[in-house]
């Protein structure tokens, strides 16, 4: 990959080698005139132009010198990823110490050049150089780069914001390695925003559908910050029973509750000096939200059962796949907490909106699962990649990962994954989509009421994708009863999987039944019994015929 080329037009950098070297070191660039090799951390190649000509003891600011440099070999300025132009140039008679005495037009020469270049090279990407601090330059209409306190990161961000770069060059400037296989302009822009805020202490809210890589982005922010040598602690709020959330986050004292046999530090303390990632923050109980808000405001946690608060210095990154604004309206999420955690908001697009990422991500997972299973040399045929790109991925990256993992499990060493293999995998992937959809829905906690349980079930049915060859859709209008039976059976089956113990594969039927119906009398009963119970309640008009017909129609529309 070639480094981007930057033209630096500054009189001092040509006249004064020490000044030039300072810029080179701070921006981490290579001086193309003087370099004798590439150094690994270089961000760009720099060519320096004074913008002046010298006749004896007289130095003159000369636009033609600049025009020639900008035109470059192509003649139209396209050689340069970016042009940096100083605001002021010192010209005139050279005095007794060799410095130009100055001319009235020196102060405005840079601005005048900028305007002329904009006319002569309409596509030129140009940033002004200034000695002012970057904070003072922030709100100006013309982009500026401050020489004061310039760091490689500031320079990289300048190039990313204003430069003409290839995808590989963008990835290099962002510091993205092979484990972050994103190539789409949209997602790269999200990472650029993340890099810009990485080093601040402000909380960040990452929004995006399930499986889009919110934790990957959170880790990137942490690794790009000055806290990268401190802990990164991730908590999935949705996975914690509501009665344990506070203990998990804030810790507890010994004896604080029945099972609290010893004191335990919470996640906030574990993440002290580092970063705490609160995934699915939308699932946090409202009472806990108030306590988290206090921690963010005061920098202190109070363990459950404790009397004294403990100081914490934590950078919080929160993530959600839910619509917090809607939740606020429904009273399920605090507005003040939303404001607090969304000092900076990043939105990751779904995989369907960044299809350029599908192939590289698929290859990344291929390598991962090939390595894990000890199968070398498995590759994708080009047609297989094309087939992968055509899938909608309601489950986003998570779904793609499942598909690739499944494919690897069915292939041998040095085999080629064909388009047919992919199509087979995708045909079964509505189960994966269902899994993703299931995770996406806000499931009520274990002790939900019957109404909540059934409402959840209906909501899941509405979002459940239907394969095109589903028998429910063929042979005329099916008998409603039978169709509902089959439909609910499938949904119950998918829902029940949620309660499968990941360690031993056993199904916790009791929890599943309780969850589905909120009815303890059904505990220990199988899905069939549950379905019958639901049908009975339907007969008792607790689910109406219209509800079910509406659901069936929606299924057909979605096919």
């Amino acid at each position, binding site marked *: 990959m070639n480094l981007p080329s930057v033209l630096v037009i500054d009189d*001092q950098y040509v006249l004064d080698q*020490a000044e030039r*070297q300072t810029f080179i070191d*701070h921006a981490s660039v290579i001086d193309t005139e003087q370099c004798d090799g590439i150094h690994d951390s270089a961000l760009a190649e720099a060519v320096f132009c004074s913008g002046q000509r010298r006749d004896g003891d007289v130095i003159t600011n000369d636009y033609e010198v600049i025009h020639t440099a900008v035109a470059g070999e192509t003649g139209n300025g396209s050689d340069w990823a970016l042009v940096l132009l100083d605001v002021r140039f010192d010209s005139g008679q050279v005095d007794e110490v060799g*410095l130009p005495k100055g001319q009235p037009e020196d102060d405005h020469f840079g601005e005048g050049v900028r305007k002329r270049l904009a006319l002569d090279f309409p596509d030129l990407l140009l940033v002004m150089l200034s000695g002012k601090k970057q904070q003072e330059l922030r709100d100006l209409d013309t982009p500026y780069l401050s020489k004061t306190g310039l760091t490689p990161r500031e320079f990289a961000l300048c190039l990313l914001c204003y430069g003409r770069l290839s995808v590989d060059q963008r990835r290099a400037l962002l510091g993205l390695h092979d484990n972050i296989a994103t190539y789409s302009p949209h997602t790269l822009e999200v990472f650029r925003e993340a890099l810009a805020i990485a080093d601040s202490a402000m909380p960040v809210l990452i929004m995006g559908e399930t499986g889009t890589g919110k934790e990957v982005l959170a880790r990137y922010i942490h690794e790009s910050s000055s806290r990268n040598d401190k802990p990164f602690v991730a908590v999935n709020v949705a996975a914690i029973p509501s009665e344990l959330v506070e203990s998990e986050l804030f810790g507890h004292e010994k004896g604080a509750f029945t099972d609290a046999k010893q004191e335990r530090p919470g996640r906030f303390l574990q993440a002290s000096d580092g970063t705490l990632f609160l995934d699915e923050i939308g699932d946090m109980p409202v009472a806990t939200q108030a306590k988290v808000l206090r921690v963010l405001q005061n920098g202190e946690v109070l363990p459950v059962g404790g009397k004294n608060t403990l100081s914490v210095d934590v950078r919080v990154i929160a993530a959600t796949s839910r619509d917090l604004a809607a939740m606020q309206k429904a009273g399920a999420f605090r507005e003040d907490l939303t404001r607090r955690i969304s000092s900076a908001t990043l939105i990751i697009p779904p995989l369907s909106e960044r299809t350029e990422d599908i192939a590289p991500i698929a290859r990344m997972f291929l390598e991962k699962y090939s390595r894990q299973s000890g199968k070398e040399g498995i590759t994708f045929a080009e047609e297989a990649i094309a087939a992968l790109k055509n899938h909608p991925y309601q489950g986003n990256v998570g779904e793609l990962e499942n598909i690739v993992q499944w494919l690897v499990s069915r292939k041998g060493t040095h085999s080629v994954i064909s388009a047919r293999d992919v199509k087979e995998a995708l045909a079964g992937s509505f189960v994966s989509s269902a899994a993703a959809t299931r995770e996406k829905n806000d499931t009520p906690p274990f002790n939900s009421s019957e109404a909540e349980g059934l409402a959840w079930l209906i909501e899941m049915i509405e979002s459940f994708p239907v394969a095109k060859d589903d028998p429910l859709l063929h042979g005329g209008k099916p008998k409603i009863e039978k169709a509902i039976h089959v439909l609910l059976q499938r949904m119950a089956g998918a829902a029940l999987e949620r309660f499968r113990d990941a360690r031993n594969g056993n199904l916790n039927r009791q929890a599943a039944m309780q969850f589905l119906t909120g009815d303890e009398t059904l505990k220990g009963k199988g899905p069939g019994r549950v379905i019958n119970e639901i049908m009975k309640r339907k007969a008792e008009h607790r689910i109406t015929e219209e509800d079910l017909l509406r659901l069936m129609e929606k299924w057909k529309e979605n096919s």
Partner: protein
Amino acid sequence: MFTPWNISCPVNILRGQLKHTWLENQVCNKSTDDVANLWRTRSWDNVIGEFFPYRINQSMQLSNDMVSGFSPAQLVDQLGPLQNLPDESRSRLKEVLHSAYLESSGISTLSELLSQELEGFEQEFSEFITVWNVERTDENESALRDGWNQLQQVANSLLAVFETLPKGVVLP
């Protein structure tokens, strides 16, 4: 400070050069690590030994000349229509303009402020240059870094004054 058309004058050329080329680029923009590196490699011996004192002198000159240098009285001699006036009238006009400018602009106060800051900078610099000229050792580098930090603090204060200076002939 009323300078609607940024009418240039020699003191403004000097102001711009000192602020941008010297104070911003060569002092405030230089981190301690930069300066330590320049000290080690001796790349800046000429800058510290020759250019900085030269710039300080230029700044003193600016401070001395700025009251008259930014005065609108100078325009009386430059503007064509006024050149036909008798010398006495032009002289009176200059006096009036200059008085009005002194009264309304606060330029004398700025000049004093600049002068004070320069004295502070010069003092700090004279201490810094003794630290600069010693043997390049690790132990001496520590003193150099401290010296540069202190010089930069004073330089930032001096720069703040430069930021308040007019950018052309001041109209009353």
